C-alpha cells in the first residue's frame, strides 16, 4: 500500500506540475471498454450459470506524455466477471500503473510493464484483455543503448496474479547485437546478422507446503531449487529475399506441479526460414519443446504466472468453424513443423484461361507430435516425481503405447480469394484438421482422435457506394465428438452501421444444438458500440469489422469501446 501511495504521489506530482505550468507539449490519452452481459444458464451450449442477472467487465487506461516522460494507469473492474473469465477477477482495482523516462540512450520504467526477450520462449509478459490473460511484471526495467546496434535490457519484479502478485521474484537480462552496426566491415554488407543472449532467473522460497497434493509426503520431501535459471541464445540472418532465424533456450531443474515435479532440465528450439518477394512469400518453421513450463509460482497452472511463452506453430484461424479444434502448445513436450505459402497470381496470368488472374492463394500445413522419451538408466520405466524422469532425442518422434507416432495435431489449409468484378469478391477455404482431444484437453475421452474437414465460402457484394452485403457459409464434417456443424452469416453494412445475423447448427449427434444470434453496431472515429443477442459459442467472433474472443452465452452482450 505504501508503495502504491508513493507511486501515486510521484505521478500526481508530474501531472500537477504540468497542469500549472501550462506547457503545450504534454498530452493525455486513453481508452475505455465496457462490456455488459446477461446470460441464461444453458449448460448444453457451454454457457455456465451466471451468478447474477447482469455481468460487467470494464477497463480504462489513461496515460500522460510529456517530453521524455510517460506515465499511465489502468483501472479494471469485474462486477461480476463475464462468463468465461476466472471468478478470481471479481472486484476491481488499479492493476497497471507505471512511470517511464526515455531518451535516446536510456529507458527506465517503474511499476508495471510488458516485455519479451527474443521469441518469448525464455521470457514474455503480455495481456489479452478479452481473454482475461495478464501476467504483467511489477518492478523496474532499464533499457540501455550502449552504442548503435548494442541494446541491453535488465528487469526485476513480480508478476500479476488477479489483484495480487505471485510469490516468485523474476530477474532478467537481455542483450541484442546488430552485427552490421557493431562490426565496421559488415556495415554495407547485404547480409544482416543479429545476435541475442538472455538470462532469466526466478527465486521462490522452498517453504515445504508446495508439495501438498503431489503424492510426495512425509520423509520423502524433496529439496526444491529456490533459484531456477534459464539462458537463451538467438540469431537472425537476412540476405536479400532470404531470412533465417533460430533460438535455443535451456532451463535448470524446476520441479513444479505443471511438470509432475520432475528434476529434468528444460530445453526449447525454434527455427524459421523464409523466402519472399513481391507477390510470393513462403515460411518453414520447426520447433522442439521439452519440459519448458516456466512460472513464477511452481504450484500454479493454466494461465497463471507464466514467465515464458511457447508459440504454437499452427494457424490462428479467423473462421468460426475453423476455431473449433485449436491447437495449444503442450509445454511438457512437443515437436512440430509448419509450412506457409502465400501467392498472388499476376493480373495478366493466362493460367486456366485467366480464371485465377489477380487471385490470392494461401497454403498451409502444420503438424505437432509428442517428443521422444527414453528412460534414464537401463530400466524401461520413465521416472516420476523426484527424478530426472527421462532423456530425449531431438531427431526422434515420440510414440504411443502401441509404438505408433504420437500425433497431437495436424492441419492442412487452402484458401483462395479473388475479386470477380468491381462489385463481387469471393473467398473459398478448405481446412483439414487432426486433433488429439486427450492431449489438447488434458482429459481422457471416448474418442480421442478427431478428424475434421471444413469448407468455407464467403461472398462480399457491393450494392452501391459504401453499402455492401457479406455472406458466409461454412460446414464442418466429422464423425467424432459432436459430429457435423453448419454455419451461415449475413452482414449488411452502411457507413457507421452494421447488422449481422448468424447461426451455427450442430447435427448428427444425439442432441442437436443451434446458436442463432443477431448483432448490430455503430462506429464513429475511435468509438464503437456493438451488441449481440442470442446464443453464442465460445471462440473468435468476427462481425462488424473487428474480431474478438468471446465466451459462450445465451442472452445478450453489449460492448462499448472508445479511445481519446
Amino acid at each position: 500500500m505504501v508503495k502504491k501511495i508513493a507511486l501515486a504521489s510521484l505521478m500526481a506530482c508530474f501531472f500537477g506540475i504540468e497542469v500549472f505550468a501550462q506547457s503545450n507539449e504534454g498530452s493525455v490519452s486513453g481508452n475505455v471498454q465496457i462490456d455488459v452481459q446477461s446470460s441464461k444458464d444453458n449448460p448444453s451450449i457451454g454457457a455456465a450459470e451466471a451468478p447474477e442477472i447482469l455481468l460487467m467487465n470494464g477497463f480504462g487506461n489513461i496515460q500522460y506524455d510529456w517530453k521524455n516522460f510517460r506515465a499511465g494507469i489502468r483501472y479494471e473492474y469485474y462486477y461480476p466477471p463475464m462468463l468465461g473469465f476466472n471468478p478470481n477477477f471479481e472486484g476491481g482495482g488499479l492493476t497497471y500503473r507505471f512511470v517511464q523516462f526515455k531518451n535516446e540512450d536510456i529507458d527506465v520504467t517503474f511499476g508495471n510493464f510488458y516485455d519479451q526477450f527474443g521469441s518469448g520462449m525464455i521470457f514474455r509478459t503480455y495481456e489479452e484483455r478479452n481473454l482475461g490473460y495478464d501476467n504483467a511484471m511489477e518492478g523496474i526495467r532499464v533499457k540501455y543503448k550502449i552504442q548503435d546496434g548494442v541494446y541491453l535490457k535488465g528487469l526485476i519484479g513480480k508478476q500479476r496474479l488477479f489483484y495480487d502478485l505471485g510469490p516468485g521474484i523474476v530477474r532478467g537480462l537481455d542483450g541484442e547485437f546488430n552485427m552490421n552496426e557493431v562490426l565496421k566491415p559488415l556495415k554495407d554488407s547485404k547480409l544482416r546478422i543479429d545476435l541475442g543472449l538472455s538470462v532469466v532467473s526466478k527465486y521462490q522460497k522452498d517453504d515445504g507446503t508446495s508439495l501438498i497434493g503431489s503424492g510426495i509426503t512425509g520423509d520423502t520431501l524433496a529439496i526444491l531449487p529456490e533459484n531456477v535459471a534459464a539462458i537463451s541464445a538467438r540469431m537472425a540472418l537476412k540476405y536479400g529475399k532470404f531470412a533465417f532465424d533460430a533460438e535455443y533456450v535451456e532451463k535448470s531443474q524446476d520441479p513444479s506441479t505443471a511438470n509432475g515435479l520432475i528434476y529434468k532440465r528444460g530445453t526449447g528450439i525454434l527455427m524459421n526460414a523464409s523466402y519472399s518477394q513481391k507477390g510470393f512469400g513462403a515460411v518453414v518453421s520447426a520447433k522442439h519443446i521439452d519440459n519448458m513450463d516456466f512460472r513464477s509460482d511452481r504450484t500454479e497452472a493454466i494461465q497463471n504466472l507464466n514467465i515464458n511463452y511457447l508459440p504454437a506453430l499452427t494457424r490462428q484461424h479467423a473462421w468460426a468453424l475453423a476455431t473449433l479444434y485449436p491447437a495449444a502448445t503442450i509445454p511438457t513436450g512437443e515437436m512440430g513443423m509448419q509450412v506457409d505459402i502465400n501467392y498472388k497470381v499476376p493480373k495478366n496470368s493466362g493460367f486456366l484461361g485467366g480464371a485465377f488472374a489477380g487471385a490470392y492463394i494461401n497454403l498451409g500445413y502444420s503438424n505437432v507430435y509428442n517428443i521422444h522419451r527414453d528412460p534414464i538408466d537401463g530400466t524401461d520405466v520413465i521416472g516420476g516425481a523426484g527424478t530426472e524422469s527421462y532423456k530425449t532425442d531431438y531427431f526422434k518422434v515420440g510414440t504411443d503405447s502401441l509404438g505408433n507416432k504420437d500425433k497431437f495435431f495436424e492441419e492442412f489449409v487452402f484458401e483462395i480469394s479473388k475479386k470477380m468484378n468491381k462489385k463481387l469478391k469471393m473467398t473459398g477455404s478448405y481446412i483439414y484438421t487432426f486433433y488429439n482431444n486427450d492431449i489438447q484437453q488434458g482429459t481422457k475421452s471416448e474418442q480421442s482422435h478427431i478428424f475434421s474437414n471444413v469448407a468455407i465460402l464467403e461472398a462480399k457484394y457491393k450494392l452501391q457506394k459504401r453499402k455492401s452485403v457479406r455472406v458466409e457459409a461454412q460446414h464442418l464434417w466429422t464423425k467424432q465428438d459432436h459430429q457435423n456443424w453448419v454455419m451461415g452469416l449475413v452482414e449488411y453494412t452502411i457507413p457507421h452501421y452494421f447488422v449481422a445475423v448468424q447461426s451455427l447448427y450442430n447435427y448428427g449427434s444425439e442432441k442437436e444444438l443451434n446458436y442463432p444470434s443477431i448483432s448490430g453496431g455503430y462506429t464513429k472515429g475511435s468509438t464503437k458500440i456493438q451488441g449481440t443477442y442470442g446464443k453464442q459459442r465460445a471462440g473468435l467472433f468476427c462481425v462488424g469489422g473487428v474480431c474478438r474472443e468471446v465466451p459462450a452465452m445465451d442472452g445478450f452482450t453489449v460492448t462499448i469501446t472508445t479511445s481519446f
Partner: protein
Amino acid sequence: MKKWISLVAIMFISMTVFAQKKLPKVELKNLEGQVIDVSSLQNDGKPIVVSFWATWCKPCAKELDAIMEVYEEWQEETGVEIYAVSIDDSRAVRRVGPYANGKGWEYNILLDTNGDLKRALNVGSIPHTFLIDGEGNIVWDHTSYQDGDEEELFEEIENLVK
C-alpha cells in the same frame, strides 16, 4: 483510493488543456530488422497513415487490400505514405513479411511484437487506423473496417493536402 480518484480527476482536467497528440517515442523493428523510432517518422511534410493489423485479422486484411487497389492514385494525389503495423506475436511474426509480400502490399511494415505502440496509442481491437499530418500531429483515427471506410480516410487525407 481517494488519492487515485483525485489523480484521475487531475488527468482529465489536464486532458482539456492539451490536445495535440503526436506519434509516441516507441522503437519498432521493420522487416529488415532495423530499429525505427516511430516518433521520428516523417514524409517531407506530407501525410502519414499508421494502420494496425495482424495476420489473423480478416477485417484488417480487407482494409489493407482495399487501400492497395487505390494506393498508387492516393500517392500521386497526396504523397501519403502508409505504415502497416503488425501486432502479431512470436507465434506468427515470421509470417508477416511473406504474408504481406504474398498479398502484394507495398506498405512500410513495422513489427509491434510486444504491443508497445499499440499500448502507447491506446489501441483496443484492430484494425485501428491513424492519420498524421505533415507536422506529425495525429489528426484523425478510426477503429474497425467496413467496406468503403477507406473512402472516408482518403477524404481526410485530401483535407490535409488542400
